[in-house]
Each structure stands twice: as structure tokens, then as C-alpha cells.
């Protein structure tokens, strides 16, 4: 057999069932071999979107997503997607062809190592036929352990060399054995000490707590300590069946939650980095001591300091240990869990500011609440980044199988591929993406990919025909905000032209009707909702316009 066939076998043995990317002569032999081995491929229109799909896939499964691109221009197309995946901490293996070794004049040559490093991506190269197994295993091992994208580069001439070994490939999972990280008893004692002396604890949970299935343990701890539960943006809506769930901690939170946080004397963070967004550089919790549970060796929080007590531990194990230690001491507190707080939380999400709407447009806040209402809680949600995330990230409140915001690397455009990958990861379950117009337009061609694979994907475009973030920032500086405006065509009609379904919506009723149609019969569909520019997203009102709400 040839090296490329062994490469394909190795990928399959690593558990690869789907690959996302674009074929070029640098990877086509490998793709061909994988197809023969029964691996499903998703052919995209831009390699970056392929990697974005692998990223979205990995965010759901937490197992390595696999993307592919050909040498040179195929690889350089991966830049933004790689950085996004790195910031999302997604385990990925990107198989890329490389120009033939010894031909530095090759037209499509690229300094791949430097490129990968600049994109925060690990790099592994298959230099000889003998090294094939080791290199594939290394790439997957590193993806699993480092939880970030790893580029596996195979020069085209090496791929064509003979491979002579019938020993079965040993996958990285066999080499990688690890158990749960157990908490240090002294650190636990210190944490228990701090918590049992607190009167108003806040538990903040992040993705790490979700990945570790620490939900039940967290709710039990909250009850025992009288804590309210808040989430990072990334874990939005998780555990909100708890009566004292206050929503997101940070600028996407409610005014009520911020007032509650101000009173807090203890923050227990679980599987969250407590970065500058979650704590507003620490200013959200001016009076609190911090207890921080995470699997990393240590974490410096967004206020530039380490926690008063840092415990390196698996989330669930750590929280359970805390709860049972407090139970042993007969510690039980009311804390925040009172009728008064319950009342305060009852209307915490109201956005009472009135705006005059531009003619023929909808209030974006009403679009979100209508969608949350019409779309049942069995359907997952991805929200995009950009200005309109200021509506979706606050106002979507139903708990769903997956709710994921897309703020990694602070870029637009990446959420459509991520949503498509997430659908593959769930075995083709329906999913709604709510994103801005500039973001959707960036990889619009991939909607055709979604149609080709008949994905049950609803894309709701919050369309104000502008680069929203720049519009409001220009406005605040009393500069010409019109310069950030860019028209779009009727994206509902574009979706239909691509072979899917689509609607243009100019009223809340239009939105409800179109969304209900999709729910009744999920398939690739786009709703182009024309929203008013006059409604400033709440986070911008707070940060840029100096307002309280």
C-alpha cells in the first residue's frame, strides 16, 4: 500500500467518521482512501468553513474534529478558522497536503510551520513512510491533550511512497490513559473555610463544569450554601431550571444580577476561566473572596489575580467534595435564597427602553423573544458574534440541548460553519443559528453546502444592513455612521435560489410564521429579518453610551 492509504487507515482507527474540507491534489488521495473506508465527507466551498465545521463538531462531541485542505492556498484559507478553534479550545486535527519535499520552487509552497504557529495551531509533519503511524498518533494525542487544533502536514511526494507494514495501527486513545484530577485536601479545606464563612455566595459555572457533568452537584451545593447560580456566556442557560439562576455573569447579564453580585462575599467558580468578561475586570464582585475550581494547574482571573483559594480538580469531583465536606459540618445557609430575591429575579430580564423604529423594520428584541417562544426547547441554538449578539445572548432564555454563543476570537462569519458542524455531531438534529448580516454574508456560499447535505438548519439573519459594532461606535464618536452600512439582497430569496427555503421578514408576525413553518418541517432555511438600527444593543448602551440600561 501507499503512505496515503495507511494515513487513511490510521485516521479511521482514531475514530474518524466525518471529515470536513475541500479536495485538492494535496489531499485527494487520502480523501479517496477514506471514502473507500466508509468515512463521510463534507465538501465545502471555502476550506476555512470546513475547519469551522470540524470546530463546531468538536465543540459538541469534545472529540477531535477532522478537517482537510490541500497544500498552499488551501492551508492559508484556514487562518481565521484555526484561530477561532484555538480560542474555543476545540480538539481538531487538520490534515493538509504539503508541497513536495525538496521542491522549494513549487508554485503552491507555503511556510506551513510558521503559518500554523501564528494561528496558535500545533504542527506535526509526516517526513518519511516509517513515521506515518507515529505522526498520526501524535497529532491525535496532542489534539486530545492540548484541546486545540493540530495541523498534520504530509508532503505530496511522501504520500506516494510505499508503506510496508501490516501491523495494526495503535490509536492515540490506547496510549493516552488518564483519570480524573482529584482535589488537594488542604486546598479543599481552605475552600470549605471560606464558603462556610460567607453569607452571600455566587456559583459561576462555565463550559468546564458542563463538560464534566457537574450540574447536579452544583445545584446541590447551591442549595446548601444559599448561593445564586450564574453562568459564563459560554454556558448560557445551563442549570436555569434552578429557581435562583440569575443568568450570565458579565455585560450580557441583567441589572438585577449585577446588583446581587455587588452584595456577594464569596464567588465559587467551577470550570470557568473567570476572564475579564465574566467579572468585568473584577469590578462586578467588589466584595467577594474567590474560590476557583478548574482542571488547569492554575488560572489567573480577569482581575489580574489568582483566587483566594484555587483548587485544581475535575469539576464534578471537586464540587461533590465541597458539598459533602460542608454537609459533614452541618453547614446550611439561606444566603440569597429568599422570597425577596425571588421577586427581584421575576422581572429581571425586562428591557424597558423604548426606541422609535426605522420604517419597515422590527424591534430586534421582539424577534429574539418571538423565536425563543416559537422554537421548542428540544431544538439547539447557536448565536453569532457581532452587534446583534447583544440581543440574542441576553434574550434567549429557554434551556436547550445545546446553547452556544460564538464569541471566540471576536470575529464574525465563523458561526455558520460551526452550526453546520454541530448538526453533524448530533446526528443531524435540527438547530437554529441567529447571526448578523455581515457575519452570514461572509461565508454565505456555505448555505449551499447546508442545502447539499440537507441539513435541518434554520439561519435567522438579524439584518440591519450594516457592520453593527462599527455603526454604534462611530455614532458615539459623532462620526459618519453611514460609512459602516452595507446593503444585502433579500437573503430569503438567496436561500431559495440555493435550493433551500427562505423568507424575508419585516414584522414579528412574519418571523413567527416563518419560524413555525421551519419547526413543522426542519430543513435548510434562511429567514432575513430586517431589524431597526435605532435599537441599540443593551451591552453597547452600557459600554459605549455610558447608560445603566
Amino acid at each position, binding site marked *: 500500500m501507499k503512505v496515503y492509504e495507511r494515513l487513511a487507515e490510521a485516521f479511521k482507527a482514531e475514530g474518524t467518521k466525518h471529515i470536513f474540507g475541500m479536495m485538492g491534489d494535496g489531499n485527494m488521495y487520502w480523501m479517496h482512501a477514506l471514502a473507500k473506508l466508509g468515512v463521510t465527507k463534507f465538501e465545502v466551498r471555502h476550506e476555512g468553513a470546513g475547519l469551522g465545521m470540524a470546530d463546531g463538531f468538536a465543540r459538541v462531541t469534545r472529540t477531535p474534529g477532522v478537517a482537510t485542505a490541500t497544500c498552499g492556498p488551501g492551508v492559508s484559507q484556514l487562518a481565521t478558522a484555526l484561530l477561532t478553534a484555538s480560542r474555543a479550545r476545540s480538539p481538531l486535527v487538520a490534515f493538509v497536503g504539503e508541497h513536495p519535499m525538496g521542491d522549494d520552487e513549487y508554485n503552491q509552497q507555503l511556510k506551513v510551520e510558521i503559518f500554523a504557529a501564528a494561528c496558535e495551531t500545533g504542527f506535526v509533519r509526516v517526513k518519511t513512510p516509517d513515521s506515518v503511524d507515529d505522526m498520526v498518533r501524535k497529532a491525535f494525542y496532542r489534539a486530545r491533550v492540548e484541546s486545540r487544533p493540530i495541523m498534520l502536514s504530509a508532503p505530496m511526494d511522501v504520500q506516494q511512497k510505499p508503506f510496508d507494514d501490516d501491523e495494526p495501527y495503535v490509536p492515540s486513545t490506547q496510549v493516552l490513559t488518564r483519570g480524573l484530577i482529584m482535589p488537594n485536601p488542604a486546598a479543599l479545606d481552605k475552600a470549605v473555610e471560606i464558603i462556610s464563612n460567607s453569607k452571600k455566595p455566587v456559583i459561576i459555572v462555565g463550559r468546564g463544569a458542563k463538560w464534566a457533568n457537574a450540574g447536579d452537584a452544583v445545584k446541590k451545593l447551591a442549595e446548601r450554601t444559599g448561593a445564586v447560580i450564574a453562568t459564563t456566556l459560554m454556558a448560557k442557560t445551563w442549570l436555569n431550571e434552578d429557581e435562583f439562576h440569575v443568568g450570565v455573569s458579565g455585560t450580557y447579564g441583567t441589572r438585577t444580577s449585577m446588583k446581587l453580585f455587588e452584595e456577594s462575599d464569596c464567588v465559587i467558580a467551577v470550570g470557568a476561566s473567570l476572564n475579564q468578561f465574566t467579572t468585568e475586570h*473584577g469590578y462586578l464582585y467588589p466584595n467577594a473572596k474567590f474560590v476557583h475550581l478548574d482542571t488547569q494547574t492554575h488560572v489567573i482571573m480577569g482581575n489580574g489575580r489568582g483566587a483566594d483559594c484555587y483548587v485544581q480538580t475535575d469539576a464534578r469531583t471537586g464540587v461533590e467534595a465541597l458539598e459533602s465536606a460542608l454537609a459533614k459540618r452541618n453547614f446550611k445557609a439561606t444566603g440569597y435564597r429568599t422570597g425577596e430575591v425571588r421577586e427581584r429575579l421575576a422581572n429581571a430580564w425586562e428591557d424597558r427602553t423604548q426606541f422609535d423604529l426605522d420604517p419597515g423594520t422590527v424591534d430586534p428584541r421582539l424577534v429574539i423573544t418571538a423565536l425563543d417562544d416559537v422554537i421548542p426547547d428540544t431544538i439547539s441554538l447557536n448565536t453569532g458574534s457581532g452587534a446583534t449578539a447583544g440581543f440574542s445572548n441576553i434574550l434567549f432564555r429557554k434551556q436547550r440541548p445545546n446553547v452556544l454563543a460564538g464569541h471566540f476570537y471576536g470575529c464574525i462569519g465563523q458561526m455558520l460553519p460551526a452550526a453546520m458542524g454541530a448538526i453533524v455531531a448530533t446526528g443531524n438534529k435540527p438547530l437554529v443559528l441567529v447571526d448578523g448580516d455581515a457575519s452570514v454574508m461572509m461565508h454565505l456560499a456555505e448555505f449551499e453546502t447546508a442545502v447539499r447535505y440537507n441539513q435541518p438548519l434554520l439561519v435567522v439573519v438579524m439584518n440591519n444592513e450594516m457592520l453593527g459594532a462599527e455603526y454604534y461606535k462611530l455614532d458615539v464618536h459623532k462620526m459618519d455612521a453611514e460609512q459602516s452600512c452595507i446593503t444585502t439582497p433579500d437573503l430569503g430569496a438567496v436561500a431559495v435560489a440555493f435550493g433551500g427555503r427562505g423568507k424575508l421578514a419585516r414584522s414579528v408576525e412574519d418571523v413567527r410564521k416563518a419560524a413555525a413553518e421551519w419547526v413543522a418541517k426542519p430543513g435548510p432555511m434562511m429567514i432575513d429579518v430586517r431589524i431597526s438600527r435605532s435599537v441599540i444593543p443593551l451591552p453597547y448602551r452600557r459600554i*459605549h453610551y*455610558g*447608560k445603566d440600561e
Partner: protein
Amino acid sequence: MIEVNERIDVPAPPDEVWKILSNPRDVVDCVPGATLGEAHEDGTLDAAVVVKFGPAKVTFKAVVGMELDEATKTGQVSSKGKDNQGGTRFNAKMNFGVVDQPPGSAIDIKATVEITGRLASLVEGGAKLVVKYMTNEFSKRLAERVSAETAK
């Protein structure tokens, strides 16, 4: 750097206005969110001011100094401070002058406020407006205080 340029109209003659402005305690009292602390031998004052920048509520501890020129009825207030967490610092200088504007007076205020550290990124947008709001509040309270004093 945030710049402030305001003129406040007050319904009182310049001498009355100057009496209030030349008292640091009265001036700091008019700053929204500010509380006074101890006076030092060199004439400076400790002060604390709570400012809300969007969702971030910051308590600054500052030292306030004042230089006055009775003859021209002008003065300079300088204050430097940092927050409890040491994450954000500010450096403010305010120059003011009282001018005759029959039947009352006008106070010209020119100030610069520099904010550095963790909230520096907010300075680009919202912080400017927060300072503007604080200046407007300050003007209002000052005018009210002057009116109240002269009514006595």
C-alpha cells in the same frame, strides 16, 4: 484623555460663588458619588468616588489638591487616584474661573481626565459620556448650592 469644557450659569454674584468654590469640601461635595476623607497638613484631602462605567462599578480612592487665586477668582483642582483592586488609575486636572455675568455669574470649567489600566479600553467610548454626565451633575449641584447659600 477625556476633555471637559463647560460653562455653568449661577444666579449669584461672583463673590458669593467664589466663597463656595474656594472651599474644597464644598467642591468635592458636589461631585456625584464622592465622599470626603481626612485633610492633610499640606492642604490636600483624601476622597473616595464611586463611578459606574457600564456594568463595572469602580470605587476610586483619591488625593485631592487645590490651588486658588483670589484676585482672579481662578483655581485648579488636581486629583489622582486608583481603585481598590489597583486595576485602574485616574489623573484629573480641573481649571475653573468665576466671571461676572450680571445679574449673576458664570463658572468656566476646563478639565482633563486620564484613565489608565484595566478600564482604559472603555475610555474610548462610554467613559467619556460617564465623565460628561458627572460634569453635568456637578454643575447642577454647584448651582443649587450657590442658590441655597445666597438665599440664606
